[in-house]
């Protein structure tokens, strides 16, 4: 591959960030050639760690002038190849920009730099009795910058929403190097287009987020956790619909099918049942009376819908063990086979039973193993296929199976990705969801803000609508 960065440009960049923050060694580049997405790897030309917004701006200006791609990267935990530098260029890392700048207890906001680890932020605000709800499974290591760029979800999405719902203001370096601020600590603000929302979930394709002001809410007083076990998948799905129809919005409503349970239990060893067909992990938080009333009512609904057993966690430790077990579902599945393909097809929650049933039929049709878990409450499922990238024949079948799963999700009024993002992985499918005109509208925005296509190129928009999911050449 041709080297995108001439020696002269390299020297300019080093003058901005310092020698120690510019790495173009082979090993240094290799370890930023991937993220958590299987089958994607591509070397950047250099890795740069800017120390402040001004340095980001100056780096971006040079890149814009010389048409060098820029890929902003948090901890590289995303699952859509969003931070894989598929067209080379520069990977921007935020290890120096990782400070919590302010916790404003009067306005209930926290202002952070993009490199702050999600869990560190949660712990810092919780120490002050405040709550930042979005909790992606990778929160122990994911960064806020990554969460914002991918609009990450999590287990609490049903009741509390996703990252988008907590971003109030941003500082962004645009592709031309200009620094803009959007939104602020305001509950109401209609001055112009809502650029904050535009940048959330833009996957680094429109600009580099260098600071964010996030909304906080008071910490719920109590929380309770329970498990409902089912002999029948559809009974579990029906329970989900019934709970919501009964006007209860639980904090968590997670679904795990039998194959997933087996693997998670083998890893976590906390006594999860492995002989049932499905499990719902249900949580409610809030004032004590409300939590107790809701839990009781939900337990009744589950039993009525043929749950074989409903168990309340006896202690916070037991509850935490259950939540942790759910969070490790994806990675635990990775124990089965060398390669793990994880999808996040999402449907309206009323359609969950149909979707789960369809997934099982599709898996059978193509003779592949698919384990399904996910956020049943918001219809966001994670059909996951343990496979082996070296087995070309099986990979072809896996690809076809997922194509059919996407098609089914859209048919049921759903989407190709609920929370992982489009990145390079789902780009060929975006048009299925948006249609030609939808793509054109998005491309117009991209073209206006990044005319030279330097901001994370090769993501979101496919060069052509290829019908490929998991096999990359």
């Amino acid at each position: 591959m041709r080297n995108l960065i001439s020696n002269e440009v390299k020297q300019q960049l080093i003058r901005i960030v310092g020698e120690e923050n510019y790495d173009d060694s082979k090993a240094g580049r290799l370890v930023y050639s991937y993220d958590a997405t299987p089958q994607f790897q591509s070397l950047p030309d250099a890795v740069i760690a800017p120390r402040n917004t001004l340095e980001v701006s100056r780096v971006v200006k040079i890149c814009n002038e010389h048409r060098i791609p820029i890929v902003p990267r948090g901890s590289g935990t995303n699952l859509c190849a969003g931070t894989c530098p598929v067209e080379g260029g520069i990977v921007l890392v935020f290890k120096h920009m990782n400070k919590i700048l302010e916790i404003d207890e009067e306005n209930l906001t926290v202002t952070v730099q993009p490199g702050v680890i999600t869990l560190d932020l949660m712990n810092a605000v919780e120490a002050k009795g405040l709550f930042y709800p979005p909790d992606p499974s990778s929160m122990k290591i994911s960064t806020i910058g990554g969460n914002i760029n991918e609009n990450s979800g999590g287990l609490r999405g049903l009741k509390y929403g996703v990252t988008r719902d907590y971003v109030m203001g941003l500082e962004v370096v645009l592709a031309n190097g200009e620094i803009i601020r959007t939104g602020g600590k305001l509950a109401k603000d209609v001055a112009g287009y809502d650029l904050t929302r535009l940048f959330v979930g833009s996957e680094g394709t429109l600009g580099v987020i260098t600071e964010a002001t996030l909304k906080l809410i008071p910490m719920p007083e109590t929380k309770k956790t329970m498990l409902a076990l089912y002999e029948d998948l559809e009974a579990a799905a029906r329970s989900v619909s019934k709970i919501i129809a009964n006007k209860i919005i639980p904090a968590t409503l997670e679904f795990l099918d039998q194959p997933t349970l087996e693997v998670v239990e083998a890893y976590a060893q906390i006594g999860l049942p492995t002989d049932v067909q499905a499990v719902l992990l249900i949580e409610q938080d809030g004032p004590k009376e409300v939590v107790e009333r809701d839990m009781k009512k939900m337990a009744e609904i589950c039993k009525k819908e043929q749950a074989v057993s409903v168990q309340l966690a006896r202690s916070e430790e037991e509850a935490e063990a259950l939540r942790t077990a759910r969070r490790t579902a994806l990675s635990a599945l990775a124990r089965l086979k060398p390669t793990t393909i994880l999808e996040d097809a999402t449907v309206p929650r009323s359609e969950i039973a149909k979707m789960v049933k369809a997934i099982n039929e599709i898996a059978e049709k193509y003779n592949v193993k698919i384990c399904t878990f996910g956020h049943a409450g918001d219809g966001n499922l994670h059909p996951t296929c343990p496979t082996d990238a070296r087995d070309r024949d099986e990979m072809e079948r896996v690809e076809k199976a997922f194509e059919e799963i996407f098609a089914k999700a859209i048919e049921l009024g759903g989407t190709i990705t609920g929370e992982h993002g489009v990145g390079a992985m789902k780009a060929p499918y975006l048009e299925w969801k948006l249609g030609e005109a939808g793509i054109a509208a998005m491309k117009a925005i991209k073209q206006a803000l990044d005319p030279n296509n330097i901001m994370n190129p090769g993501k979101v928009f496919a060069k052509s609508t290829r019908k490929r999911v998991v096999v990359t050449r």
Partner: protein
Amino acid sequence: MTTEKEREIIQKQFQERMDEDELMNCMRCGFCLPTCPTYIESGFQESHSPRGRIALMKAVVDRLIEPDEDVERSLNMCLGCRACEPVCPSGVRYGHLLEEARDIIQQHKKHSFLVRVVRKLVFHELFPYPERMRMAMGLIGFYQRSGLQSFARKTGLLNILPSSLRQMEKVLPNVPPLKEMKERPHHLAPEGPVKRRVAFFTGCLMDTMFMATNDATMRLLQLAGCEVIIPPAQTCCGALHGHGGEKQKAKELAKRNIEAFERLEVDDIVTNAGGCGAFLMEYDHLLKDEAEWSERAKAFVAKIKDISEVLVELDFQQKRLKAPPQIVTYQDSCHLRNVMKTSAAPRKLLRAIEGVEFREMKDADRCCGSAGIYNIVEPEMSMQILDYKMEMAKQTKAATIVTANPGCLLQVKLGIERAGLADRVRAVHLVDFLLEAAKGIQASEQEEHIRKTS
């Protein structure tokens, strides 16, 4: 420095010897990153994380990169603490990958003459021979007792050493006289009826420099009701060799140890050093390709147990134990925790001691930076990690920091020196502390007895 030709051989060896399934098992989820001390202390550099290192190993196998200086640097910087393994949802056995990669590089790298001589002496001529270990330690003992030490300290002669070694010299325990090191027991009867028959793995450093700790271990086993067999044919566990890229020698030592223990008809083989215990516990992996040894290794491995586990199983914590009133904290030995999976037993025992207020320090499960000879070969990173550790220990206001491995013990002692806490804080091996507590109760019972009868 490796030459181009060496790199080519190393790359070929990577392709032949590295376990491809294990490399592919890493799904790059990144769950290991927050547990990796070098990732954190290097300011979040992916090349100093387990995920980064696995990616580099795989890239060498895939011929995406050459095994150049930077790759070697990344592998050398790893402590080998294996904190990444328990948190790895995919169950990648990172330690095995690292060991194999290091072995390949070491075996095909042309070291300088001096390094070759030192490696040969230490790995091949010293540690495998208990007799020579005793002689070498005897020399240190002579240095300490003859007045040479105080001479060297006073005259500033030690200033020729790098600062980390200079500080290390300060915290070395007093080595017992050679005569005592030679007269070791081979069989000990329990106090009271036999509850269990165990063998004791003495280790090489433990049975010389830390002989008192070994004595305490055997005494505790006796107090707990164990008949203790100490087979004289045992030798060094080979951990230093295995971690240092001398796998062949490690295998030889493993076989000698298996032979020394396999016919003893004991319930457990007891260790008191996490580093040794963990290596012994993986003899089955070490010898997996040798048909006639793999079954024997498995039988050996099944019996390895840390002293703390044996004591807890025998309800030692139910005995009355007493120490002067103080706050105590515990620093996990990485290999004891991450490989032998022993972390609750030492804490249980400490909590059982009257007078002890046990306070957990933050990140007690994070490596102290000792890591075999890491603190000598990577002093800068090691001291950075140690200083963080001492900061966390300080926050507990503990007067005693308990550890369960000789390397950790020396490192924490060094940390106490560096932090200027020597007048207030001490570091001690778990068994020494437990024996003090057992004696403490004896002493106070005696006092009681005297008071009552006088």
